[in-house]
């Protein structure tokens, strides 16, 4: 699939079905946690559409990033995990899976809050280019994108999701 054909709303439906299956195959207690910011929007919507009880978790990679010295501290939403992490089956939700470095940082962040029973990953898009051994259990689409381009999820005021493809700014 080319990046231009990515319809985030359409892909969300596929993600929803995939996560439904994942939940059915996972023991309780199970909790969703979305990676800020795109993953958090998705997790919030999945929680609602699947009628899951309680509040969805939000998790930020900023405290554990490995490029802190180069990029500085990105100010983003904070981690809020409104459930007991110890012993929970946590499903991380993110918009785009790329190098895997964000997820590595997110998993470290999660373990700062306790010892989950298991951690799984659901993403809207896998764009390849992995630099770490991290894979998604659920993935709505795979797309090949050159390293010079960034792919980000955007959310409009009425909650509709779309993908934004941009050429990387020169550092």
């Amino acid at each position: 699939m080319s990046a231009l054909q990515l319809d985030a709303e359409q892909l969300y439906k596929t993600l929803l079905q995939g996560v439904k299956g994942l939940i059915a195959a996972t023991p309780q207690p199970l909790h969703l946690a979305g990676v800020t910011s795109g993953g958090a929007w998705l997790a919030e919507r999945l929680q609602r559409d699947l009628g899951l009880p309680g509040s969805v978790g939000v998790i930020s990679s900023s405290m554990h990033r490995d490029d802190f010295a180069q990029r500085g501290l990105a100010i983003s939403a904070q981690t809020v995990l409104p459930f007991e992490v110890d012993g929970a089956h946590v499903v991380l939700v993110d918009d785009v899976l790329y190098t895997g470095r964000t997820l590595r940082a997110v998993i470290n962040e999660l373990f700062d809050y306790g010892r989950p029973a298991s951690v799984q990953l659901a993403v809207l898009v896998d764009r390849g280019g992995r630099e770490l051994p991290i894979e998604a259990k659920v993935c709505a689409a795979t797309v090949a994108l050159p390293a010079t381009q960034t792919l980000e999820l955007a959310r409009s005021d009425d909650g509709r999701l779309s993908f934004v493809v941009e050429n990387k700014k020169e550092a």
Partner: protein
Amino acid sequence: MARNPQLNKNGELIHLLSTEGLSRDILTQILDTAANFVSVSNREVKKVPLLRGKSVFNLFFENSTRTRTTFDIAATRLSADVYTLDIARSSTAKGESLLDTIANLSAMAADIFVVRHSESGAPYLISQHVAPHVHVVNAGDGRHAHPTQGLLDMYTIRHYKKDFTQLSVAIVGDVLHSRVARSDIHALSTLGCPDVRVVGPRTLVPGDLSQMGVRVCHTLEEGIKDCDVVITLRLQNERMSGALLPSSQEYFKSFGLTTERLRWAKPDAIVMHPGPINRGVEIDSAVVDGPQSVILPQVTFGIAVRMAVMGIVASHDA
């Protein structure tokens, strides 16, 4: 125009020497980053790895317990290795110059120097002589500045009052000798606070302070009337021995903050103090322990603010 010595050529913060001359964007960036760090203290693992492998040297040429400890905790929660040097009792006492001390510590691969010094400008002098990857954070220099205290005061005010542009803030006490007051005043004016008052006797709050854009008040009633925030400063004992003040009892009679007098301020006004507190001198015990006091939250926020400052400077090179 010369560049602010705290910023690199991209306008990023590389040293924190003073709140003076820092833009609203930079102050806000520090406060926003601190907000992210407040929650770290509530985790099961109270530590994040941002400064892992970095060495922070605490250089306290002047005594301090609280500030030094909170810098210690802040650096440790960022996973830095922290070395605290009791400089007052070490080489300096043997005659080594300040810059020689710094050169020696730099040779031990320091990344951040946290400096407190009785001489105004000492942290600036150090910042001019360190390697490009080394950062200096001022933890209080002479009468000049105490920027992390100023920033934690701003964090506290923002936490309780949200918007600076509607606030009246009174700073009560020995404003003349206070580096905290100076750092607060610069930060408040940059953040858009329209009404800053300095309150105290003429000997400690001279009229020419109005040049800093504040209102000078010589009675407590005028000074704190209808204000949203009362910052009480510590009355330093050493001032009592000179001609500046008759006695601590006299001072308390005119400017001590009591529950009755606090009623002059707005009913929801918060009371702050940089510590250490002299109960019964500048502030009554009932106010310190009362519902409007946010003195202990200030201490907690101070750790997050110091984490933010060290995290931000460490991520930029000169």
